[in-house]
């Protein structure tokens, strides 16, 4: 009996501790959301409270107007456009390449596979400057092309993750399909691709996050305000006005996180399993 009471109180303490710490973990995010409804002066006073003194939903309409006559509708559309196409490109190209490395024996495979592993470890900053200069010389440095095109060439992380997943698909399926008259191409479309679905979903989610949050790429390649992405626009918004409207800035920041949270809520299970099994950074 006493044992049970002791166990129960231990359980309660455990849950209270975990929830309290968890609350501190997400406090900055909650604070931003509440800040998006607060008056400027209340934010600047550093108020701890998550409940605004006076509700100011007009932060959202002020923020939405954007700057230089361009509204956030444009910035969000730009972000969606870049993110959607880049993600599509990553999924298609990475699955193709993963299939080649995991299921086809061809000359030079080892060399190319080593190259792929090397690009995984290569810090992006080493190639940042020359890539920019090359795009600049091609006259494409102020466009979406440098932000999108490389994604159609497979991303090493995702190729590797899909290869790991393909290892789990029995080769007997390929052999049976070959006997039934399938070529290597139809094995990819009819057998591997449908079975690869969980891995494809993980790729979509993680690539979406990376691209949506990406700041350095747009910072380097987009100079016209009308082609800015949301993350770039929020930063500019914070800088541009002589007196920053924090309420409006937080309102737009909160909006920019909505797609991320929505996807997280819907695909939570895929994401946690995907990161867990492949060791990807999320």
């Amino acid at each position, binding site marked *: 009996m006493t044992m049970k009471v002791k166990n129960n109180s231990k359980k309660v303490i455990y849950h209270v501790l975990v929830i309290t710490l968890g609350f501190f973990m*997400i406090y900055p995010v909650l604070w931003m959301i509440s800040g998006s409804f607060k008056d400027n002066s209340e934010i600047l006073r550093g108020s701890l409270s998550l409940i605004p003194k006076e509700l100011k939903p007009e932060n959202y309409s002020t923020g939405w107007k954007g700057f230089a006559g361009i509204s956030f509708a444009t910035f969000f559309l730009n972000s969606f456009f870049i993110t959607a196409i880049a993600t599509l490109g990553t999924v298609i190209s990475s699955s193709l390449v993963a299939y080649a490395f995991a299921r086809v024996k061809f000359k030079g495979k080892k060399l190319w596979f080593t190259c792929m592993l090397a690009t995984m470890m290569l810090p992006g*900053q080493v190639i940042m400057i020359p890539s920019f200069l*090359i795009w600049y010389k091609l006259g494409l440095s102020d466009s979406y092309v440098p932000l999108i095109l490389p994604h159609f060439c497979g991303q090493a992380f995702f190729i590797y993750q899909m290869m790991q997943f393909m290892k789990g698909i029995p080769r007997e399926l390929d052999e049976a399909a070959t006997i039934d008259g399938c070529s290597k191409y139809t094995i990819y479309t009819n057998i591997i691709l449908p079975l690869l679905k969980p891995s494809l979903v993980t790729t979509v989610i993680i690539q979406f*996050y990376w691209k949506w949050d990406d700041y350095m790429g747009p910072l380097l390649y987009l100079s016209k305000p009308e082609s800015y992405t949301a*993350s770039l626009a929020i930063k500019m918004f914070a800088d541009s006005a002589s007196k920053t409207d924090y309420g409006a800035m937080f309102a737009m920041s909160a909006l920019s996180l909505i797609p991320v949270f929505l996807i997280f809520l819907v695909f939570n299970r895929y994401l946690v399993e995907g990161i867990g099994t492949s*060791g990807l950074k999320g």
Partner: protein
Amino acid sequence: MSEKTERTSGFSKFINNNNTVGYIFAFPFIFGFICFSLIPIVTSFYYSFTDYSMGSKSVTYVGFKNFIQLFSDDVFIKSLGVTLKYVLLSVPLKLAFALLVAYVLTRKSGMVTLYRSLYYVPSLVGGSVAVALVWKQLFARKGLINVVLADMGLKTVNWFGDQKLALYPLILMTVWQFGSSMIIFAAGLKEIPTTYYEAARIDGANGRQTFTNITLPCLSPIILYNLVMQTIQAFMSFTQAFVITQGGPNNGTLLYALNVYNQAFKYNHMGYACAMSWFMLVIMSLITLIIFKSSKFWVFQEGGED
């Protein structure tokens, strides 16, 4: 399609040849590797020995001048120190938190998935400009952190005004995003056979002994993986410093990547910036190598002992 027609058609034979199939499927990667990795790397290497700047007509070969200049460049040396401090403090702390929370959250309870999601939220949004701007406001002079300090009767701190202190809010922000390492650890913890723990309990081991003698050794390969990946990532950290402090005050938060960015795109010293990136590549490879070499002594290989 009968086997006979397939054999007779030369094109069909060619297209279904393993080498053809392999290169068709691998083509996106090979093309991308050559265009977006190999050519830029070679170009970068070439530029690092020149005084190249954008818009200039002539490029002069300057030998090792850029690399020699690095060591007499006070800003560079300071930035290197700041980056090392940032990496050495943020990575171990981040991994310690990730492991601790993952361990605490292994209990069988229906709430664990929810809790894990809760702790993962910072990693989810932490890389965004939005959160960086929040962080800037939290640690502002009259920001929330100082209000709390004042309420507790402590002295308020001018976080981003003092070059000795400004790095700590950035480190804290990095540690705060321990979620993805936590999930990788959690997956690893699930793989440890429960029989190990049962045996330990029968032998009368307490919680701490179980943790140090079973959990840590079994998890060591995953610790190694997380350590390498997080170290590389920390060296490349850019957005936080760029958005929150712009490297200031007095270059106290000038992380390496930010310094490279400034040299290249603010001052247009492309050649010098390329040399800096190559120097970083060398340092990072060295550190990764050291970690891998040292892993012999602390990463437990299954079946290696006993």
